[in-house]
């Protein structure tokens, strides 16, 4: 049990610096208290120095014919005094800072371990039962029904994954990157740690008990929004990682234990290859590959012909070197494991290898998903009409949950 520093009484500085939301854990409250303690010390020191400066500037302003008055050029006692006072103050800060740090990096043995994987430019959380969170929520959401034209308009921002954690629990993060260095920052917990390739890092935090005032909007798979008990907080990537660094975010959602358990039970169910492939796409691939014909960093995956050329499984790809290749299962497998071997004409060689990141099963599932997006899907019936319909419904569904 850590004593909290100065955070018990409501403080004007606390609100200016950290907002009116109470710190969600003891460690976070400790950090705020320590920060405010240092800040009050700084304000005091600054005020003393500035008051002296202003006083001297006014009192000893230059007057014609009046020389500066003599005074000692140095004084050992005063030098020692103003060396010792800052030094001892800083010793206190150092010790408190060390205590608060220990609370953030040393986790209890029974903490719930969440694996966080960072990749350009998305986060994936894996729960102890192997499930990965499939839920996303848009940055903003607005739905209007226009009475005149009777049309329904839904406007939303980009989607960010939601990581569920139960209330009143110690959570420990074990994090790794699959490409460059990222950093996982939960501002409300006042903690971040770098997410490095080929090395595990982590920190821990304790989730608060929820109150009835804590509600969040939950969107089910049909797009229906209901209010449930919970508390959302942002997690940001804090280490610069390239183009969409500023869009590498996630929501930490604290929910009652039974909601968490129910989610785990539902997500633990084994998915069909196509559904599993869609999930992997949603988590890993979609920042660069769309499935509705949109051009991103990489080519779209559905079968479509547009200004950039013909796309989709079962169609030839025109390559940057002038040759062409059939988009079949081996082509996709190679493109995942050795992305720069064949570059589609008009695209930059921007992808990194997913060797060692995606398992063979993941790749199989992804290919199954990519096949299902094409009107030349070998697994669908011979009738082109029905396969086109499948593609449409897939796209629609993707639109609703992406």
């Amino acid at each position, binding site marked *: 049990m850590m004593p909290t520093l100065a955070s018990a009484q409501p403080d004007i500085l606390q609100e200016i610096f950290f907002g009116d939301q109470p710190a969600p854990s003891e460690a976070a409250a400790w950090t705020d208290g320590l920060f405010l303690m240092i800040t009050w010390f*700084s304000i005091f020191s600054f005020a003393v120095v500035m008051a*002296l400066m202003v006083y001297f500037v006014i009192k000893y302003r230059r007057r014609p014919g009046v020389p*500066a008055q003599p005074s000692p050029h140095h004084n050992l006692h005063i030098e020692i005094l103003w060396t010792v006072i800052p030094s001892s103050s800083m010793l206190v800060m*150092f010790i408190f800072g060390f205590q608060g740090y220990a609370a953030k990096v040393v986790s209890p043995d029974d903490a719930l371990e969440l694996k966080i994987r960072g990749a350009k430019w998305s986060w994936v959380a894996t729960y102890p039962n192997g499930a990965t969170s499939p839920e996303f929520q848009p940055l903003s959401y607005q739905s209007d029904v226009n009475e005149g034209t009777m049309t329904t308009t839904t406007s939303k*921002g980009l989607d960010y994954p939601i990581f569920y954690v139960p209330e009143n629990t110690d959570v420990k993060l074990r994090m790794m990157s699959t490409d*460059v260095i990222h*950093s996982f920052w939960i501002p409300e917990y006042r903690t971040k740690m770098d997410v490095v*390739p080929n*090395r595990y890092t982590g920190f821990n935090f304790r989730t608060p008990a929820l109150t009835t005032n804590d509600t969040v909007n939950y969107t089910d798979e049909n797009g229906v929004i209901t209010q449930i008990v919970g508390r959302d907080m942002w997690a940001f990537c804090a280490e610069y990682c390239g183009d969409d*660094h500023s869009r590498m975010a996630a929501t930490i959602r604290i929910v009652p234990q039974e909601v968490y358990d129910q989610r785990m039970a539902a997500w633990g169910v084994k998915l069909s290859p196509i559904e599993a492939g869609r999930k992997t796409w949603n988590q890993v691939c979609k920042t660069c590959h769309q499935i509705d014909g949109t051009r991103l960093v990489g080519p779209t995956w559905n079968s479509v012909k547009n200004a950039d050329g013909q796309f989709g499984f079962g169609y030839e790809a025109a390559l940057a070197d002038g040759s062409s290749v059939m988009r079949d299962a081996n082509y996709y497998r190679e493109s995942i494991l050795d992305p720069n071997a064949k570059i589609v004409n008009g695209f930059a060689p921007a992808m990194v290898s997913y060797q060692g990141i995606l398992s063979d099963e993941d790749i199989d599932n992804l290919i199954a998903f990519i096949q299902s997006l094409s009107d030349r899907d070998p697994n669908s019936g011979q009738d082109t009409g029905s396969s086109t319909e499948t593609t449409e419904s897939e796209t629609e569904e993707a639109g609703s949950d992406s």
Partner: protein
Amino acid sequence: MSMLDTHTAHHEEGSYFSGPPGMVAKIWQWASTVDHKKIGVMYLFAVLFMFFLGGMAAISVRYELLDPIRTTITETVDPTTLDTVTTEVTTGESLKELLSAMGMAETLSGTQIYNRAFTLHGAIMVFMFIIPAIPAALGNFFLPIMLGAKDVAFPRLNLMSWYIYLFGCTFGVGSILLGGVDTGWTFYTPYSTSTDADHWRVVLMVLAAFILGFSSILTGLNFVVTVHKLRAPGMGWFDMPLMIWALYATSIIQVLATPVIGITLLLLMFERLMHIGIFDPALGGDPVLYQHFFWFYSHPVVYVMILPGMGIISEVLAVHSRKHIFGYRAIAFSSLGIAGVSFLVWGHHIFTAMGELAAILFSGLTFLVAIPTAIKIFNWIATLYKSSIVLNTPMLYSLMFLFTFSIGGLTGLPLATLATDLHLHDSYYVVAHFHYVMMGGTVIAFMSGLHHWWPKMFGKMYNEPGAILATIIVFFGFNLTFFTQFFLGTQGMPRRYANYVDEFQFLHQLSTYGSLLLLLGFLIHLAVFVHSLFAGAKAPANPWGGLTLEWECTSPPIEHNFHHEPLVTHGPYDFDKVVPPHWDPKDYPLPENPGSH
């Protein structure tokens, strides 16, 4: 230069910049000069140009952040046909819109443009402006004169440093003209070894930093030897002006630390070009190793940036308050102390990427470096006691330095404290903190020194009211720009973000308006300087009543600085005992009982 020449042609001796007639002869004379003053002036114009370039990049960064970049997906469902129309609209890509309005077809996305803009700002400001600004421009001009020497110890080496600097800048600017880089000025691996893989731009920028390092090393070496060997007769170590102590400490850091960044950048290029695995874990390297190498150089370099600024403050405060500096030895030794400790604290840049034990050790060591800095601030304030203060531009800038640099130093405390750093690291709080140190420290001190020595360098006075107006605008602009960012940081805004969640917009807008005010202030300064060069009143040899040796020379100095080798008979700050050179004792009253030394 021709205007200057017509004005100074009647000088008996001729100033250092009165050259042969004819444009070609003049250009050749400047290009081949070994005169430290001419080299200093060339550096001055180059770093001011780089400051302008980096400043424009800063303004574009702030312009982009006026609005967050938002992608809105709108789905409209028609009730009769049940058709869904989906449209995707991205707003707030201010720079991209600006570029296309200027007629440039831009293939990069809004965030990509932003990433290039902030990299450009950082790389230019750090490598091409702030590191050489004070030592290479003002230091080159004044270090030999303040020591009573004719020139630096190795004048030809000095010219070589200048050309290496120019060469390095060419690479940097070349990389920008080819499209810019998006690595951030820190070139963190493995991002920097993998981004933009099919292009030479990143290599060019890294090469620029590598080359600029040599310029820095050679200048440092030159200064160290000059201080040791070329002090005027009668000038012991503790008779040197504090500016010299600061430049001496700076030079030691430059000579010792810069080779490390050279090696690091070389390793980076090996990995990028030859795929030798040093930092990339995919090749068997360690990505955090790069950060250790990088900050082993780049942390001491923070003091390369700030120590010369502290030297300027010591000079300006003493001269413009006509007061002996308080605690001369404390200030001199704290410069050396800072230089020493600066090599032990690099780890505080990477608390979030290192083991627990290392983090704790580096946190403790980091607090050590704060103490000499605090000592300096207290000594400067004590200097003002019972003094005679005149509020002209150099003095206003020095007082502004005490204000902004104190904030910069104090806001560093929560960053050295581990528990709070885990929150504040890589947030806007850090951005605000280092701008208060780098800009509120070094740039403000540079402006103070530039105004203090401008009459000496160019033989012209500047328009004081105009400069004071600009100073006040810079003060408010600076604080509006950066004070807001402390709150952005504590509330959770990460740095190097092209967009942000809505609640941060108000503070971002305030910050952007502040940056425009800052721009206005610097443009007025530019106008004042240009006016001074072409129409300024002739400067007397010692306009402020300084006691250091540069005030014994004419304004501007003659080619060999002094007619005869000067003999040092008084301390640099004996304002209570000595009437300044070129002053009439009637205009400079001395106190009846001078202070004890």
